[in-house]
């Protein structure tokens, strides 16, 4: 074979060069060994931690919120398991593409997903951002099917709020939603993580601290696309602690009766029913309502916009925030002031000829022919305007203000719900301070005396006022919590102290109560519909004009100009144990409100007596009076 053997010269040179190569390689390998020593020995700890951060993922386990129970332990608000689809940005390779694919797969608005991510951009990248709350089965399956294309997208099982009654007592329960950025900055939300679900209205809001519970966590091993793998690590699971159960003072049956009554009447409005002895709220409603379940599922923009722009304002809690003229329901305050200030006695009589002139102006009584000579009891029974014009005129506005305030009008009730507004009972001081005119004219007192003019009240304050009349002067604080879970059992929560207490002479108060008894039980009472055999229901009707008589004539009658109807009540007359108010927005006649109240009272007493509860009333059962009192030729005049 042809080959060129190595000559000695060649060999020496080759050997030298091979030796040089050997040294070169040895040096390179030594350098490599040093490099690995630096990483694996010297800096091991740093890299070990980085590797752990890579593959260990702490997943939050959201705590279920505390269950809300009624006063008998029946579940009012509960939790259900739902699936959220969330994003862990740290694991997303291409965020734009991921969101695009996800939006496509789940048929959601890509822009909204983007906005959610943008809003949470300052969160640590490992914390899941919930993109789709309460995902449907179809959305869940579509997402899981494309998981390989969606690194960083995961499905979480989370408890979400369930309101079995849907719109029932919606304003009372409120709703939950993701914590807002401005809330996170506040001290009372310390420890709340971005993205957490908190109460945003009603009891959910007021008792959020107790209802929220403590989130747990689960540390899992994940691979580079964020998929969970491997067996659970010991000690990795820190279970979530459920929020505290709260037992409300609400009675589910009375609450349902209230809603049923409204439903049958077809009117909107508000009602508050409470125990006049201690202020426990038995039922509470504001209508129209919204469905808090829609919020629990992460309300979509369209629904939110709809709720906010609806002319009927379903988000407004009318019971706490609606301010209306009390009409004739105010007359007890005037009567009581007259008695207590010594201006009149229970036997004081006034002649009503259908109207009277004060300070050069003629003030009509609603009863065209007049009531003739009438005393306090019958003036309340028949709601005689002239009687109260006269007493009011004798008292002056400031003494009316004093007693109305002592009984809870024109002030906040102090109920444990957020955003309560305050009504107004005018006084000379108020006028001097808050109006341009400054000076109070005696003529203005005449309107005030029958609950018109500047007087305005919220339904809750009128309920407190009625309860205070019922219990003899203790302005109880309406409240909603009866007991709270202390971790083991429901522990009673002491009722809040009364707002104020005034000693009223029994005999004088009895005259007022007798009058209210006559309203329901008297021959000429204005709310005879609310009568329940043997229960001595007491009450008072009231009509709040939405527009002056002159204005109405000019505007012609339209639906949203119809009068509001009030009915405040308590029962039984002696030792009252239930009191409340029904407010029908544009309810035309206060007697219609009495029909709603009657169903509430019937339910309450049937339950108390162990009788079967009355069925939900039909529209016919309500015997609604829908005649327009101002329609030409109707001949009907609204009671006052």
């Amino acid at each position: 074979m042809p080959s060129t053997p190595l000559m000695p010269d060649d060999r020496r040179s080759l050997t030298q060069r091979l030796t040089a190569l050997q040294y070169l390689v040895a040096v390179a390998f030594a350098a490599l060994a040093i490099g690995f020593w630096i990483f694996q020995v010297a800096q091991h700890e740093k890299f070990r931690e980085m590797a752990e951060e890579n593959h260990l993922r702490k997943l939050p386990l959201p705590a279920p919120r505390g269950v809300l129970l009624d006063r008998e332990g029946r579940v009012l608000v509960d939790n259900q398991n739902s699936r959220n689809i969330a994003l862990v940005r740290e694991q997303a390779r291409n965020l734009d593409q991921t969101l695009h694919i996800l939006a496509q797969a789940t048929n959601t608005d890509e822009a909204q997903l983007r906005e959610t991510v943008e809003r949470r951009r300052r969160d640590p990248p490992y914390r899941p951002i919930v993109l789709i709350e309460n995902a449907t089965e179809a959305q869940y399956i579509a997402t899981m099917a494309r998981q390989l294309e969606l690194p960083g997208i995961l499905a979480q099982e989370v408890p979400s709020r369930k309101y079995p009654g849907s719109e029932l007592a919606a304003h009372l329960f409120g709703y939950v939603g993701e914590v807002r950025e401005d809330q996170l900055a506040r001290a009372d939300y310390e420890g709340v993580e971005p993205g957490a679900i908190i109460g945003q209205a009603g009891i959910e809001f007021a008792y959020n601290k107790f209802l929220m519970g403590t989130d747990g966590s689960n540390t899992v091993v994940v691979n580079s696309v964020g998929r969970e793998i491997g067996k659970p690590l010991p000690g990795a699971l820190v279970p979530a602690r459920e929020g505290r159960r709260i037992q409300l003072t609400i009675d589910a049956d009375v609450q349902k009766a209230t809603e049923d009554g409204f439903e049958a009447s077809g009117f909107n409005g508000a009602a508050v029913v409470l125990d006049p002895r201690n202020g426990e709220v038995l039922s509470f409603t504001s209508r129209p309502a919204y469905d808090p379940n829609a919020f629990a599922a992460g309300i979509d923009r369209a629904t939110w916009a709809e709720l906010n722009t609806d002319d009927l304002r379903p988000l407004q809690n009318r019971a706490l925030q609606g301010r209306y003229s009390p009409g004739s329901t105010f007359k007890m305050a005037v009567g009581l002031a007259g008695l207590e200030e010594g201006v009149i006695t229970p036997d004081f009589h006034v002649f009503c000829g259908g109207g009277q002139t004060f300070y050069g102006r003629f003030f009509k009584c609603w009863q065209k022919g007049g009531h003739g000579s009438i005393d306090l009891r019958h003036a309340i029974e028949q709601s005689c305007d002239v009687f109260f014009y006269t007493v009011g005129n004798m008292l002056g506005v400031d003494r009316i203000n004093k007693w109305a305030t002592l009984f809870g009008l024109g002030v906040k009730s102090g109920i444990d719900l957020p955003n309560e507004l305050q009504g107004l009972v005018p006084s000379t001081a108020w006028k001097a301070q808050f109006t341009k005119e400054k000076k109070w004219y005696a003529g203005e007192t005449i309107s005030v005396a029958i609950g018109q003019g500047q007087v305005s009240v919220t339904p809750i304050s009128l309920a407190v006022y009625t309860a205070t009349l019922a219990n003899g002067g203790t302005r109880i604080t309406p409240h909603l919590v009866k007991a709270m879970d202390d971790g083991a059992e429901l522990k009673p929560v002491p009722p809040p102290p009364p707002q104020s207490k005034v000693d009223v002479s029994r005999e004088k108060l009895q005259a007022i109560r007798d009058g209210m008894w006559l309203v329901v039980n008297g021959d000429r009472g204005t709310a005879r519909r609310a009568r329940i055999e043997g229960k001595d229901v007491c009450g008072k009707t009231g009509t709040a004009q939405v527009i002056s008589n002159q204005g109405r004539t000019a505007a012609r009658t339209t639906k949203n100009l119809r009068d509001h109807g009030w009915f405040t009540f308590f029962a039984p007359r002696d030792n009252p144990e239930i009191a409340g108010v029904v407010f029908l927005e544009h309810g035309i006649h206060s007697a219609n409100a009495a029909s709603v109240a009657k169903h509430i009272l019937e339910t309450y007493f049937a339950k108390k007596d162990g009788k079967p509860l009355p069925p939900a009333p039909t529209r016919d059962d309500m015997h609604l009076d829908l005649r327009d009192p101002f329609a030409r030729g109707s001949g009907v005049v609204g009671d006052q």
Partner: protein
Amino acid sequence: MFERRLYFHIDWLLLGAVLLLAAIGLSMIYSTTYVTLPEGGGHAGPRFWVQLYAVGLGMLALVILLALDYRFLAEHSLVLYVGLVLLLAYVLLFGLRAGGSTRWISLGFFNLQPSEFGRLALALILAMYFGENRRGARNYGDLVIAALFFIVPFLLIAKQPDLGTAVTLVPVCFGIAYLAGLRLRFIAIVAIAAVLLAPVAWKVALKDYQKSRINTFLDPEKDPRGAGYQQIQARITVGSGGIKGKGFMKGTQGQYKFLPVADNDFIFSVLAEEQGFIGVLVALGLYLFVILRSLEAARLAKDRIGAYLVGGIISGFAFQVIYNVTMSAGLAPVKGLTLPLMSYGGSSMIATLAAFGLILNVRMRRFTN
């Protein structure tokens, strides 16, 4: 051709070290490609079996290249070289396309990657050319011819594109030229020229992804989710292994796929993670032994052809090992350069074992005529 006495001159130690490295590679491939079944248990992944198969074929190639006299092969190196060039051309025209490059010829049961055999063919023809030339490589004209031998397969492979494999031809050239007596001054000139031409190459020759790889290497934190990801993950993988390692199949970086191509380009990182610094030292020691022992074979070679052949082959091998191991620790730009004997890859395994067949061949025949 194969005389019985030659059997006694086989370098069993070198062969043993080579097979040991292949076995370590196999166990790492087993670890990273193990299939865990959701219902529990699992089995070796298909890649493990492919690699085992390739080791078998490689041993066959090794035995064949050991049995034939290397001088016979060198004599026919032009045929082999032309054959390889034709194969590379065929690949470009009709090859199997995968992952954005055309590198393979489908043989049905096996996808052959001809470029892996480029180093062998080039080493043979260059050893032949310089070995037959009495003057050695002192004439610039010779170097031009040698450069032509180099440039044809280089361009064909680079065009696939597979710059990583193409670049491994460079140390083969330099290794042979250096042993053939090329003056260091000349090597220095080439090096300076390369440095001067680098900016031009940057603008003209490199593709965007290649530029970004180099940029990323210089500052991996700049783009931790993109191109810098592999480099950062490689360092974490290696560093988290510690002295003793996390244990066989207990690595988190490789097992949970934080480290890409763990069974291929980054197999050494997985070794470092699971077997720790101790495992790294053992593997590096074996590689160093294989390289030094091969260079010893070159020293013992009977003729220039044998010495140059071994020198060329082992230069390419050493370059690949050093570069890949450096890259495994995140200390070099990420390049599709496998670790010979350990990385997953059938053609690479067969070609590498065949190459060691030639090295053993040269040493074994040092006394023959």
